[in-house]
């Protein structure tokens, strides 16, 4: 609950910072600063992912036994989780940077850099399967099956817990985003109708899918 509140506060704070930048400075300057910042963060996250992968590889070469082996396995698991988080975040931030560079800055250099970062982060996401093989050499890769299919009971328990929390955040944040977009449209005169409708449709589809899956079991 604490993290949801922190997430919402950060989101609202971010909205007002960007809102202020858009209103009190030249739109292009504010836009360029925003895109460059997003590109920088995405680049840092990609570097972090590569660094985490190197750490996993280094841990794999260690020959340890007893409690130390458990500690190494635990460290590998956390490094992999960090890798996933960094590469996922860099992927979505690259998409955001690309969209903003096309809409706001209209600068070819920023668009090209965003596309390069997008390709890199996509490659890192795709490479996750290989890293799982590094970590769990006993598990045979099965690309036809989802992560949930190949996970064992304990892992499924953890995945379910994570998905439940993420589903709750998705609902709350989309409702908050619709509210903020409505306030922005009313104050600024720039209609956000299209995005408001899109967000409402996403809410509807995601929740209906979940409820239908439950209903049909």
């Amino acid at each position: 609950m604490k993290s949801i509140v922190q997430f919402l506060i950060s989101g609202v704070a971010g909205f007002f910072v960007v809102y202020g930048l858009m209103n009190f400075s030249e739109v292009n300057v504010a836009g360029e600063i925003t895109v460059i910042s997003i590109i920088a963060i995405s680049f840092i996250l990609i570097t972090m992912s590569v660094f985490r992968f190197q750490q996993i590889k280094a841990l794999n070469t260690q020959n340890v036994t007893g409690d130390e082996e458990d500690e190494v396995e635990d460290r590998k698991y956390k490094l992999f989780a960090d890798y996933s988080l960094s590469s996922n975040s860099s992927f979505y931030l690259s998409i955001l940077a690309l969209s903003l560079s096309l809409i706001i800055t209209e600068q070819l250099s920023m668009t090209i850099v965003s596309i390069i970062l997008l390709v890199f982060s996509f490659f890192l996401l795709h490479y996750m399967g290989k890293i799982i093989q590094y970590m769990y050499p006993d598990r045979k890769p099965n690309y036809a099956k989802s992560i949930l299919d190949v996970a064992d009971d304990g892992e499924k328990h953890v995945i379910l817990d994570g998905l439940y929390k993420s589903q709750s955040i998705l609902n709350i944040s989309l409702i908050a985003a619709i509210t903020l977009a409505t306030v922005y449209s009313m104050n600024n005169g720039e209609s956000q109708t299209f995005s408001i409708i899109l967000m409402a449709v996403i809410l509807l589809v995601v929740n209906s899918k979940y409820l239908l899956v439950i209903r049909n079991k």
Partner: protein
Amino acid sequence: MKSRLKELRAREGYNQTQLAKLAKVSRQTISLIEREEYMPSLLIAVRIARIFNESVENVFQFEEEEL
């Protein structure tokens, strides 16, 4: 539910990774059971009990109110 997994592991000299391989589960699952954050399925419970040559009730112990 209380689990004697940690105690039994120490008795047999297994670490979590070794026990996980024997029980055909991930180390994370063993760790979750030990921390009592996850109740194993019947199949995993029987596998673990067999590894230690104990009965399931001897490895996983329930309070009377839970039953």
